[in-house]
C-alpha cells in the first residue's frame, strides 16, 4: 500500500512577522520555515500505520513549493517517510490549484490513502484536502483525531464542534489530520543520517500536465496590531500605579 502525505512549507508562526513593502505578502527575508505542524501529524500517522498494521506501506511525502521546499520534505524523510517528491513551483497558488497538482501526483503514484494536515498554519484555508477528495472522486474524512483500518476501509473519529463523530469511509480516501490525532516524533540520529540517502524527485506543474489557473488572488495583507507591551509587576500597588499612569483607571 502506498500512502501519500502532502507537506506544506510554512513560515514558523512563532516568529515575529512583517509585511513586504507592497503589503502583498509577509516579508520573507530572515524568515524561518517549518513543515506545517498539521502535516507533521499526518506524517506521524502514516509512520504509525506502517509500524502497526501495514508494515509494507510505502510513505511518499510530496510538496508544492519553491526549491527550498526540499528542506521541509527532508524533515518528513528524517521522520521516516520513504521518499519525497517536490513539485517545484515559485508562485503563490490557491488551494484549488494545489489540489489539482496533488491530484495529478495521485494519478501518477496511485496511493490508497492520502493523509494531510487539516489546514496549513500560514493561510488557515482548510480547503486543500476537501478539494483533492472532490477532484479525485474519493471518500474524505476530515478533522481526524483517530484512524483505524477495517476490512473494508477506515474508521475515523472526526473532531467537530458538536463532539466526536465516528464515520466509516471506503478506500481510496483523503484523511485530514486534526491536532489530537497523535504527537509527532522528532527524527532520531540514525533516521536523519538515513534520510540523507533517501531519494527526492523533482517535477513541475508542466510535467504533471497541469496548468495552474488561479481562482483566488491575494490582494493585500495587513498585520493584526496588538499593542501588547508586557511588563512584569511584583505587587498590587505597582499594578495600580501602572494602571493610573496609563489612565486605565483614574484617581
Amino acid at each position, binding site marked *: 500500500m502506498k500512502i501519500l502525505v502532502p507537506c506544506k512549507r510554512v513560515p*514558523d508562526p*512563532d*516568529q*515575529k512577522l*512583517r509585511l513586504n513593502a507592497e503589503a502583498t505578502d509577509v516579508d520573507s527575508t*530572515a524568515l524561518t520555515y*517549518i*513543515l506545517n505542524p498539521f502535516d*507533521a501529524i499526518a506524517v506521524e500517522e502514516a509512520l504509525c500505520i506502517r509500524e502497526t498494521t501495514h508494515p509494507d506501506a510505502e510513505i511518499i511525502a510530496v510538496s508544492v513549493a519553491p526549491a527550498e521546499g526540499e528542506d521541509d520534505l*527532508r*524533515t518528513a524523510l*528524517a*521522520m521516516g517517510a520513504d521518499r519525497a517528491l517536490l513539485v517545484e513551483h515559485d508562485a503563490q497558488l490557491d488551494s484549488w490549484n494545489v489540489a489539482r497538482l496533488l491530484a495529478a501526483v495521485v494519478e501518477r503514484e496511485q496511493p490508497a490513502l492520502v493523509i494531510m494536515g487539516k489546514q496549513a498554519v500560514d493561510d488557515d484555508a482548510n480547503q486543500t484536502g476537501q478539494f483533492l477528495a472532490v477532484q479525485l472522486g474519493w471518500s474524505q474524512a476530515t478533522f481526524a483525531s483517530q484512524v483505524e483500518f477495517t476490512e473494508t476501509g477506515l474508521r475515523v473519529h472526526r473532531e467537530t464542534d458538536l463532539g466526536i463523530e465516528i464515520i466509516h469511509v471506503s478506500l481510496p480516501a483523503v484523511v485530514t489530520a486534526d491536532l489530537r490525532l497523535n*504527537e*509527532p*516524533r*522528532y*527524527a*532520531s*540520529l540514525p*533516521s*536523519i543520517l538515513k*534520510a540523507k540517502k533517501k531519494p527526492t524527485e523533482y517535477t513541475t506543474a508542466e510535467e504533471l500536465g497541469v496548468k495552474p489557473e488561479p481562482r483566488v488572488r491575494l490582494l493585500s495583507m495587513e498585520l493584526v496590531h496588538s499593542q501588547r*507591551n*508586557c*511588563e*512584569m509587576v*511584583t505587587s498590587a500597588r505597582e499594578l495600580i500605579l501602572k494602571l493610573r499612569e496609563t489612565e486605565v483607571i483614574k484617581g
Partner: protein
Amino acid sequence: MIENSSDVVVIGGGVAGLSTAMQLARRGVSVTVLEREQIGNGSTGRAAGLLGQLRGTAEHTRMLMDGVKIVQELEEQAGTEIYVQTGSVRVAETAEREKEIADLVEMGRSIDFDIAPMATDELAKRMPYMRTDDVAAACWCPTDGHLQPAELAAAYHKVGRDHGVRYETSCPVTGVLLDGSKARGVETPRGEFYAPILVNAAGPWSHLVAGLTGTTLPTAALGHVYLTTQPDPDHPVDRLSPGFRNRHHRIYGRAENGGLLVGIYAEECAEYDMETLPPDFDMSAMKARRDDFHLAMLIHAAQQRFPWINERTPMHVTTGIMTFSPDGLPFCGQLPDHEGLFYCSGFSGHGIVQSPVIGVIMSELILGNRSTYDIASIEADRYWGVPGFQERDEIEQRCHKMQGSYYGRLEGKSADSKTDTA
C-alpha cells in the same frame, strides 16, 4: 539632574545585568537597565540553571559557594524559592572518567567542599530512572542543586527596583555616546540615556554592542538545546532528585516538573550570526525543527543513560543561544580603549549560577575598588590585542572549539590546570 541620566547604564536585562544593577543600587548608585526586549527574555529565560559548585580552581568554587549565600538572602528579600538544593552526582563509565572523578573528590576535599564517592547501588536508589549497570564510579555533592532562572531574574528585578533601579524594556541600544575615549551614554529609539559608566551585559549581542565603539569582544553566540520529558508514571522523577553530569555522553540534567531535563554540550553546535537576525528577534520563540541534528544528538546521548527516552517520548524541547568565550570564562571589567565602558558577558552557559557573585564583583570594579575575589581569570582584557583572538571568524572558531571540548576533555590532575570545569 538631566532627564535620562544616571550614574550607570546597564545594557541588557538578563541575570548578569540585573545582578550588577541590583548590587550597585544596594551601594547607593543610581542605575538604569536598558533591555531590548523584556526582562529575562534572552538566554536567562532559556537556562536550565544547574549549579555545580566544584570548579577547576578553589577561587571559582568559592565564588559559586558565596553565590548561594547571596541567593539565600535574595530569597528572603523577594519571598520566593530560587535555590533548589537537590545535591548532584557525576557518573563515569570509562577508566579515564573514573580517574577524573577520583581526582575531583580529592580536589574538593582539599578545599573543604562537601563531596564523596557514591556507590552504584546508592546511585540507583536515588535515581531509579537512570541506567546504572554500566557506571564505574560516581560522586555526590550534597550542597549542589539548581537555581530557578525565572525566579532569580524576578528577584534581582524586584530587589533592584526597591533600591531605585530604573528598568526600560523594549529599548535596544543602537549607539554609544563617547566624550573622547570616555563613556557618556547610549542611543536608543527611545532617546539618549546618559551615564559616565556603561555596562555591556548584552549576552549574545554583547560583541555587537562592543562593536558600536569599534571594540573587539571575543564572544560568540552558540546554540544550545535541552529537552524536558513530560511526567511519565513509569519513570517518575522526584522533584528533589539529584542534578547529574555525565561527561562521557556529554549530558547534564535535573528534575523538572515531574519529568527529566537533559541537555548536551555536544562536539558540534549551531552558530548564530546575531547581526543577521531580525532586530526584533525573540529568543523565547526559538524552537527546534523535528529533524534538528543537534536535538537528535541530544536524544541519542540521553538514551544511553536513560534508555526510556527516545524520539517519540513526549517532551518539550528548549533551544536557545549561549554566549561563549574562548576559554569558557566570562569577561568582567574594562578594556584599555575606553574609560567607563565595562563588560559583563561570555558566561558560556553558566550565567545563571555565576550571576550572584558576578554582580558583587562588577559593582566592586565599577566603584573603583579592588575585588574581594581573585578575578585574574575572568578579567575582560585577557585577550586584548592577543593575536588569534581579534577577527570574528577566528573568535567564533575558538569559542566553538571551547564549546565542543566543554564536556569532551578530561579534568583533574592530568588535565590542563588552567581550564575551568563544567
